[in-house]
């Protein structure tokens, strides 16, 4: 059996199939050692049966965010040891005389140069000298690194020197990350950063996954890991290339959203995952499937391996509201988090988005987390009255907070849709995460999105996505060729030779000769024309007379996972009254668990379930489709 387990900040969500039925299990997370909750879940679910465990992990993400990775050495061509710290030599904030730069993952004493040089076309201009190599090994050894990253100039054009260094450094007995293996693409800073992040994470990820894998093997189970690109890899590869897992969980959310959209028959969706401190959004088209970017950044550091095109903003249920000196209200990015939490949790001192939702009747104080937690409405009201600034009423203040939080999320949604040349009116807003369904209808209206979809178990969609993911390996190489060059086909064949998948999806990064950014198009006979069309769509013009060049070749090897058929119910027309909890002047309150496929009613209404609440405003109509998704026409 397959079990998908997604580690979150508060809960570890598990989704699995039992006798063809999709089951959900939520356990408290064990942050000190996330493996404990995973192992507990597996033993509880599989009861000794062999299982294929698919894991969405935050080990890599947290090690980076908390800067608790390994002591990693960075080796590059002599003269370029500082490239990694100089970055693109720009400052992060334009008008801040006190701007700071995060220290690099490898400080100066852990950055090493080796005299060597390879040209852009792969010719060895300067070979590595034996004495230099010996000196390098000694100086690295003296620093006692726990991991080593090697990224030489133009190593992707000819890896001979990186291989020689790796062979010479292997006796040090620490993991070695090589740039021509992890990311054989040009732009030395972005590549170096990616390889160093990998080295920084490798020891921690290795010991975490090894431990988990050993324990699971003793139960005859296997371990796989979700990548940021939305595909599964075996734990052994994830341990070697942990940089591929930094958005493991959120990627599961996008895959889950895609699966729900396909089943429900919506070809184009905007996935909207709102949690306590941040919101992740992604544009998904069922025809094209998952879209990855190579320009992702984390804490200002580039990560150039494929990461699903997920845009994150610092706005969530815990985001704090305040007035600035110019008199404007602002919300976030500071968050009250889970500790002290919003005012209504009893200890926070600052108004938050969750409090605003509560004050406007969009949360039921007695049914939060299935009634496990009571929300203090009066406390929130008192604080709001004190901090409402020039606004007349507490309600106006609360509405203002929601509108502003919505506008930040709207901006995020706009960024991935309108700004990429997509019209939101062609999309369905698929909303999940604890807080998403509360805001979805307002956002849909602001962006003229006609429909909102709230799937079953909106809190466990990431785990569901991990369950249904395919196994995926990504290969790439910078080639810099003209489009009619026969070497392109040769390179595609070479990259596909790895045969670690059933299907090879080949694509090319193409640009007009002389441009600095590429567009990715499928490798087809008329890929040049596809490029012109895409360029027109993205940047407002195309020039068919201008020469085009192929920058990178990409091959994605995919093994399709057995499809999971979501349970289907027969439609039974109804008005939802059987699930009505009570009516208030603000609207009716329904229990989601009691609604069935075919129910249809109009807002204002609040639909509560264990891990989320959905707000349906006046004028919107909600109906349950055969998968018991809430489909709301706003």
């Amino acid at each position, binding site marked *: 059996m397959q079990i998908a387990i997604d580690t979150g900040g508060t809960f570890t969500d598990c989704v699995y199939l039992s006798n063809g039925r999709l089951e959900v299990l939520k356990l408290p997370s064990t942050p000190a050692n996330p493996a404990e909750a995973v192992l507990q879940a597996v033993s509880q679910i599989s009861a000794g049966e062999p299982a294929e465990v698919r894991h969405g992990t935050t080990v890599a993400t947290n090690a980076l965010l908390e800067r608790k990775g390994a002591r990693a050495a960075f080796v590059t061509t002599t003269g370029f040891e*500082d490239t990694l710290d100089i970055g693109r030599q720009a400052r992060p904030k334009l*008008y801040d005389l006190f701007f700071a730069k995060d220290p690099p993952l490898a400080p100066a004493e852990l950055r090493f140069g080796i005299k060597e040089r390879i040209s852009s076309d792969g010719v060895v201009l300067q070979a590595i000298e034996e004495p230099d190599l010996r000196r390098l090994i000694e100086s690295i050894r003296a620093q006692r690194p726990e991991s080593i990253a090697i990224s030489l100039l133009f190593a992707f054009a000819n890896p001979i020197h990186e291989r020689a260094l790796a062979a010479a450094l292997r006796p040090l007995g620490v993991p070695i990350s090589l740039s021509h293996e992890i990311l054989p693409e040009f732009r030395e800073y972005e590549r170096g950063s990616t390889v160093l992040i990998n080295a920084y994470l490798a020891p921690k990820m290795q010991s975490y996954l090894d431990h988990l894998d050993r324990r699971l093997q003793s139960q005859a189970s296997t371990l796989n890991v979700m990548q940021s690109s939305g595909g599964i890899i075996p734990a052994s590869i994830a341990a070697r290339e942990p940089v591929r897992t930094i958005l493991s969980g959120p990627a599961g959310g996008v895959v889950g959203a895609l699966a729900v959209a396909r089943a429900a028959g919506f070809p184009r969706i905007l996935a909207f995952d709102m949690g306590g401190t941040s919101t992740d959004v992604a544009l998904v088209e069922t025809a094209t499937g998952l879209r990855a970017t190579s320009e992702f950044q984390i804490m200002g550091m580039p990560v150039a391996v494929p990461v699903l095109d997920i845009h994150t903003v610092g706005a969530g249920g815990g985001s704090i509201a305040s007035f600035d000196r110019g008199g404007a209200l602002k919300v976030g990015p500071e968050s009250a988090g889970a500790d002290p939490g919003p005012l209504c949790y009893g200890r926070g001192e600052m108004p938050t988005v969750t409090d605003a939702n509560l004050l406007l009747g969009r949360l039921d104080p007695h049914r939060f987390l299935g009634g496990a937690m009571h929300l203090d409405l009066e406390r929130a009201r008192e604080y709001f009255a004190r901090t409402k600034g020039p606004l007349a009423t507490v309600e106006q203040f609360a509405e203002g907070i929601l509108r502003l939080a919505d506008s930040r999320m709207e901006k995020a949604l706009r960024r991935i849709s309108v700004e990429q040349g997509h019209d939101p009116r062609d999309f369905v807003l698929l909303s999940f995460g604890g807080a998403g369904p509360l805001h979805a209808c307002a956002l849909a209206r602001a962006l003229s999105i006609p429909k909102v979809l709230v799937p079953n178990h909106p809190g466990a969609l990431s785990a569901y996505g991990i369950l249904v993911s395919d196994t995926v390996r990504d290969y790439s190489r910078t080639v810099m060729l003209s489009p009619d060059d026969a070497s392109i086909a040769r390179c595609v064949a070479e990259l596909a030779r790895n045969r670690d998948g059933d299907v090879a999806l080949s694509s090319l990064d193409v640009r007009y000769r002389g441009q*600095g950014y590429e567009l990715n198009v499928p490798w087809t006979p008329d890929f040049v024309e596809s490029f012109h069309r895409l360029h027109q769509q993205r940047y407002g013009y195309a020039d068919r007379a201008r020469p085009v060049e192929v920058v990178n070749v990409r091959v994605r090897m995919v093994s399709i996972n057995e499809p999971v058929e979501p349970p289907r119910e027969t439609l039974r027309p109804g008005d939802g009254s059987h699930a009505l909890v009570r009516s208030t002047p603000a609207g009716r309150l329904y229990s989601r668990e009691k609604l069935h496929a075919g129910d249809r009613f109009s807002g204002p209404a609040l639909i509560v379930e264990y891990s989320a609440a959905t707000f349906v405003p006046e004028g919107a109509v909600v109906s349950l489709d055969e998968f018991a998704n809430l489909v709301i026409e706003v």
Partner: protein
Amino acid sequence: MMPDPIELAIFESSFHSIAEEMGIALRRAAFSPNIKERRDYSSAVFDATGNVIAMGDDMPVHLGSMPMSVRAALDKLRLARGDVAILNDPYDGGTHLPDITLVMPVFAEPAAPAAAFYVANRAHHADVGGAYPGSMGLCREIFQEGIRIPPLKLVEAGELNRCLLALILNNVRTPREREGDLTAQLGACRIGVERLAQLIAKYGLARVATNADALLDRSEALMRSELERLPAAEFSGEDYLDNDGINPDPVRICVRIAPDPAHRAIQFDFTGSAPQVDGSLNAVYAITYSAVFYVLRCLLPPEAVPSAGLMRPVKLIAPPGTIVNARPPAAVAGGNVETSQRIVDALLRALSKALPDRIPAGSSGTMNNLTIGGFDPRTGESFAYYETIAGGAGARPNSPGVSGVHTHMTNSLNTPVEALEYAYPFRVRQYSYRRHSGGKGRFDGGDGIVREIELLTDAQITLLSDRRVFAPYGLMGGSDAAKGRAALDGVELPGKCNVQARSGSLLRLETPGGGGWGLPVVDPPTES
């Protein structure tokens, strides 16, 4: 009437997104390394009278000067629907010739008599003709610096003016690249116009315009609340450019700042600054205005919108015919990149007396402009490479300066070594920090950078840099930083020069660090 604070925030974010989106479209579709890799461009949204409402987070030196481009276009042309104005004349809305600006009007409805908004973007083109490849060389007159374009319609009623385009392209060294960049700029303008039209369609013109006004007022209110807190006294500061590249004399820039907290206003007076110079270091008024705008913006909280409202309480005196307000036909290529930095240095020096705990020591103070032009044997075409090289940032009253980073009036990116070697007949030999080049102090200044380039073909090198004579200053007892230097095959080069170099030559640049802040802490003597 108080504006609705919520709606205001929403519009602020909408206008800002439009400016940002134009910038992204421009960067991704452009051909010049200056634009695509280095991001030497700006995009902005203006109201019907040409006040800037929102700018992308791009180049500070363009901040105050973009509105003057729009102003010039409006004064000279009647921009109708589907028109796009082009200009680069520093004496008519521009800054220096490589910066080409496009301005496009936004009409609320087809029959509207006047534009409701304008969008504009400016990009630094790698070559606009003139005496030297890259158009940044030492000249004595603007006529030698490249093609000079007054405000003209590049597009009229949706039709590209091919004659004008042909004239421009005939006067530059890399016409194909220029055409690509201008097309990218046009594409970005259209995207901006489309987004504003959508905003107007959604909220109605009246509401959008009211909120644009309110944004200007809000910036003004933020600025005034800051000015209220300044001491009521006069503060002066001065600094020097090494020379103008032609005459050996230092060039003085001085400013007297007179805050008027009672009226929540402030005056900047540059009287006493040197007369305009023979070389191309002259700054036009727009540059000086931008430098003042930048410094004031740095004093405000991060959420302040850099809109035209910030400058309402500000009076600026820059006597015509001086280095800070040059008159034609003075050459100006370096005013934008070098003199602008020195104006900021003088301003910050003056402010450090008023706000000693909020002002850092001098930063590298030069953009180290390097241009290399020639013929690329690999492609059979000419090339023009332009890059600015970062230096050290000045130490702050509470922290050391950052190393190897662009400061103040620029924030352009470097060209990746691997991208550069694909694109040009060069080999980069070194790119690293220049250790110990930051000034010492309680907090040390940041280190500068070393960049070594080997030429693989004969080429002409133009260097436009400063801080070879006057070092970036330390403050409150901190020491000055190391000055910059440059050498070709080991032979020292002047800070500003044009030289012909042979294939195989090695050019080495060492950029200045940042000044130190405060007296160095001396370890107490250990008791014996």
